[in-house]
């Protein structure tokens, strides 16, 4: 087949590069969601540690 003129080839080239960027964007978005979940879990863990500390504090005061 003869080479496509620039006007006809442009949308195909743009589509191919957009596919690449879209894939990376979707992947990074999924990673960001997972990061949000990790952040939430760290928050829960901090609360748990604080609860433990407040439970142990009165005992230490009595001693």
């Amino acid at each position, binding site marked *: *087949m003869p*080479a496509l003129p*620039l006007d006809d080839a442009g949308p*195909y*080239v743009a589509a191919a590069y957009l596919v690449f960027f879209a894939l990376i964007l979707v*992947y990074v978005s999924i*990673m960001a969601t997972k*990061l949000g979940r990790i952040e939430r879990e760290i928050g829960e863990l901090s609360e748990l540690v604080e609860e433990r500390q407040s439970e142990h504090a009165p005992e230490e005061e009595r001693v």
Partner: protein
Amino acid sequence: MTFGRGLRALSIASAMLIIGAFALVFFYAPNDADQGFIQKIFYVHVPMAIVALCGFVAGGIYAIRHLRSGDRADDLRSYVAIHISLVLAVGVLITGSIWARAAWGHWWVWDEPTLVSFLIVFLLYACYQPLRFSIEDPERQARYASVFAIVAGAFVPLNFMAVRMAESLAHPRVLSTTGGAMPGDMRLTFFVALVGMACLFVTLWKYELASKSASIQLRSLKRRLAGDHALAPLSRSAAPQEL
């Protein structure tokens, strides 16, 4: 275990290389004499294909290490390498179809060995996640997945060589001793794009490893602090859940 070491520098290098490569594609590399402007797809399609195939092989190499040492971190490395390679392989199939439509007038050519062989490799690795998901016991899951990754990883170069020996009907040969004689400016652009894509792969690989490792360690910490009763039992997952 820290998987995130050097991620910042790697991320900056990847971004710069990808931006630099695409700048070279559109402002430096000349239009192909035969295909014209449409050949610009080559600089994203081929590096993605090469990096995806190398990623599959890397998954097999980490699987060998996992079977030899029993280190679960190697199973995680293998899993993540295959996962990212699959994402890139989807990109290869879509960009390849767009290029085929523009250059040959068809979205897909079934009698072209390069295209069909890549589809076979993709479909083979598409079975990897369901295989992992189907096995509940984490130890067996990691072992069976490693065996699969090694066999499939060995299939990739064999498949590549078989395609090289087959007679190509339409798909061009890029890296060969006789064909693929690109002019210097095209060759430079291609190699920058290839290095950029490889750098991006390693960056995403390390990001996902760091994320998965952090989740696993957090869960283990929570279990130690609150006890097993405080956590929901581990649901079945394709991804490794222990280190």
